[in-house]
């Protein structure tokens, strides 16, 4: 895949202590815990883990200030394999737990690792609220369009008609498009990448961590046991060239001989470049305040994966929930002369309507 423009420099890690300048560079090994990795052979999670372990040293953060919080599912075992702080929590609730942690600790870089069932089914509510609040979190959503840990039921991203353990006649549920959902929740950073494309995933992670606010990264991930090959057409070099629409800020959105144009009614379509009216060719604007073009791009995908936008859909600045909450507390504490003393608390307890009983 092609390179992704990083855009404006990010403040995502402001407040998180860096390694000393003269400290030796961190290595992938330092981020690898002593626990045996227990995913199925061939699972896409291995590649994502290796990418993450390879990427983290580049941040130059103190390892002890990085926290991975996960929910439940195959992907949620991720924190055990990284030698950082970590919590493997309960199904769907990682964004809520991470919100409490990130809000109370400005000095931490907090990642959430989740899957399509964890984030979009049981935890859908927490996900959309984290996105709307714009808590400074990086959420990695491993999407394999199936429930793996419970052995093969359809998930909220499975295509209609999917034959699974719980849908012997085919699923009738309309799936979520995670990117559309995130944009609908007014997420400030939304991207899509792929387990097997280490370079692209690393670049997306770099931009996601640089972003201050909630970054949602959907990662297509292959489940070799229950949904093998679901993204195979995107991994085949030849087919990928015609199917993957690369999102590069300021550039036309194209794949092979096709290009994205704006239609009469404002919606986007993919057409042969030869037939495209040059005036209608769409250039990607990753920093656009208005999310409607990003949303329209997210709708270009179809169940046959004929056109799949990949890269960063949106990256805009908005004050983060955790910064604003801390600002209010800090202003209150500093405005009244610093940390409260015993006397300040005595005054609180006494209140405005008290009386004395004499001996």
């Amino acid at each position, binding site marked *: 895949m092609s390179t992704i423009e990083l855009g404006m420099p990010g403040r995502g890690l402001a407040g998180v202590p860096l390694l000393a300048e003269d400290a030796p560079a961190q290595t992938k090994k330092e981020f690898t*815990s002593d*626990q045996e990795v227990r995913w199925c052979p061939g699972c896409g999670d291995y590649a994502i883990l290796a990418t993450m372990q390879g990427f983290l040293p580049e941040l130059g953060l*103190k*390892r*002890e*200030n*990085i*926290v991975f*919080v996960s929910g439940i599912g195959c992907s949620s075992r991720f*924190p*055990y394999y990284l*030698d*950082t*702080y*970590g*919590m*493997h*929590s*309960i199904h769907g*609730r990682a964004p*809520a*737990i*991470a*919100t*409490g*942690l*990130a*809000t*109370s*600790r400005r*000095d*931490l870089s907090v990642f959430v690792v989740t899957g399509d069932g964890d984030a979009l089914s049981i935890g859908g*509510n*927490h996900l959309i*609220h984290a996105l709307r609040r714009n808590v400074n979190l990086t959420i990695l959503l491993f999407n394999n369009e199936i429930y793996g840990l419970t052995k093969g039921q359809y998930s909220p991203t499975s295509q209609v008609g999917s034959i699974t353990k719980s849908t012997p006649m085919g699923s009738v549920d309309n799936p979520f498009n995670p990117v559309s959902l995130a944009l609908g929740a007014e997420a400030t950073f939304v991207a899509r990448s792929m387990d097997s494309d280490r370079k692209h995933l690393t670049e997306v992670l770099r931009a996601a961590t640089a972003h201050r606010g909630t970054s949602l990264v959907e990662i297509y991930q292959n489940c070799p046991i229950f949904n093998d090959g679901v993204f195979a057409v995107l991994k085949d070099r030849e087919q990928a060239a015609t199917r993957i629409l690369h999102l590069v800020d300021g550039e036309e959105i194209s794949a092979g001989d096709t290009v994205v144009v704006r239609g009469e009614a404002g919606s986007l379509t993919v057409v042969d470049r030869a037939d495209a009216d040059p005036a209608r060719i769409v250039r990607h604007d990753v920093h656009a305040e208005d999310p409607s073009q990003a949303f329209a791009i997210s709708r270009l995908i179809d169940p046959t994966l004929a056109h799949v936008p990949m890269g960063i859909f949106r990256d805009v600045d908005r004050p983060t929930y955790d910064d604003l*909450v*801390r600002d*209010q*507390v800090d202003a*209150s*504490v500093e*405005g*009244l002369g610093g*940390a*409260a003393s*015993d*006397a*300040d*608390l*005595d005054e*609180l*307890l*006494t209140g405005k*309507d*008290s*009386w*004395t*009983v*004499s*001996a």
Partner: protein
Amino acid sequence: MVIQGMTATIQQLDRVVIRFAGDSGDGMQLTGDRFTTDAAILGNDLSTLPNFPAEIRAPQGTLPGVSSFQLHFADHDVLTPGDEPDVLVAMNPAALKANLADLPRGATIIVDTDEFTKRNLAKVGYAVSPLDDGTLESYAVHPVALTSITVEALAGTELSRKDKERAKNMFALGLLSWLYTRPTQSTERFLALKFGGKPDLLHANLLALRAGVNYGETTEEFAVRYEVGPAPMKPGRYRNITGNIALSYGLVTASHKTGLPLVLGSYPITPASDILHTLSGLKRFGVTTIQAEDEIAGVGAALGAAFGGALGVTTTSGPGLALKAETIGLAVSLELPLIVCDIQRGGPSTGLPTKTEQADLLQAMFGRNGESPVAVVAPQSPGDCFDIALEAVRIATTYRTPVIVLSDGYLANGSEPWAIPSIADLPGQRVAYTTEPNAVDDKGDPVFHPYLRDPETLARPWAVPGTAGLEHRVGGIEKADVTGNISYDPDNHDLMVRLRQAKIDGIADTIPPLEVDDPSADAKVLVLGWGSTYGPIAAAVRDLRLQGHHVARAHLRHLNPFPPNTGEVLQAYDRVILPEMNLGQLALLLRARYLVDIQSHTAVRGLPFPSSALADVILKAVNA
């Protein structure tokens, strides 16, 4: 209790119970609050019972819309809001009808005659006005045209008729203040604060208040005024406090004492929301409040903050506790400090949101999957909510465990005079995180084992992110003893289940023994209680002792684990009576644990026990 009399002078009373009742929008809670504050400042001991519907504004003038506030004030130690009101202020026919059955014969009734219209009477099923048909013959009824006199008094103001009418609660307060010889200065100060930016409304409310006082002075409707002297109290500084405020202040104080920043994750729910409101205004004390998207996220945020080293707190009521169950189970497995405040209300399901009940005890004890023990404590009075918060934080931080605080609607909204403690004198010490490795590996290098326990408390180390060298992972999946690594080993699971239980059981070593109040040391009957039944039980027992009966009394503030001497105490009496506002939940636990044939006495009416009814039950046992 004689309230009415024929002398024109001031008559001394030792206690009075007043109930203000009106429409939800009539301002009865505010009127009650103000009268309470004035009584407290005069040095009366007191206890209050607000009672209001769940609907914010039920249809006007109907029975479901009646809101009331009962206040018991006295020149002696007050234990309950009083069984029967001596005085009822009824702002409309609905308020009269809804409350009449609670009044003893001879009680004083003050009614707003302006509201006794045909239409309003019909709304509550009165064909004829009870003021005219002899229904109220055995009461001392004072018909006062409250609304029209108030409107008249405000004739000179620019306010609309509706706004003028709204000041009638201040007229009622002024009249009652005159009747019980109370000063109105503190209410005037309060109004000045409340309406500081709205001079029109301030002026109108002050006029109405004074009109009420003057009405008492100038009419001959009331021949007698009453006075209730101050109650003897230990010297010190006092204030009036509700349970929810006391609990909020207790949590902030615990945060201050331990040095742990307080992080509240909460979702609004009656009757717990006032804690969220109060704490959100205390940012000056480093308090962070997160109003979460739901109950689960509220406790999740608190637990996430606890992982980061904060004092994580969540506040809720029964339905919310049900939703939080899985996260509390996670906290049991992670062995992190967490405070869960359940302000109980009537259940099941939505139940009675604004009424009180004690029926979440078994939910607190067992309402999670697997063997999932947590500490459970319960305050016994509004002021005790402060102390119980300190105790809950002590247990949570010492033992790295969730602690459930079981308050209830009665304690939460009820108030009493509270001896203000001095922060410096309170217990509580700074909590230190683990900062160093606690073991060595095969090669002799230092390592950190997150589940290597303190041999005394069985608590695991609390090492927070940001601490170099102690990076570790925790999770809800079963973990190996000591190392905390994932383990499915059968023996390890058996060991971990028992260790988690032993840790909670061990808390008993640090809690005070169950104290028995048995002054004659001759009692054969013990009355045991927990939570908010303290007041009614103590009042009932006091009355029986005054009649010459021997009754012992004890009250549990720790429900899991129980104080170590609980079994001995129960076995030392011929009979044990246990009143509860549920169907016998604590009785079930104690019977199972101590094999004592406890006599359960239960009522689930959404209201505290009347102490007289309890006295009857106890007396039967004494005479049996």
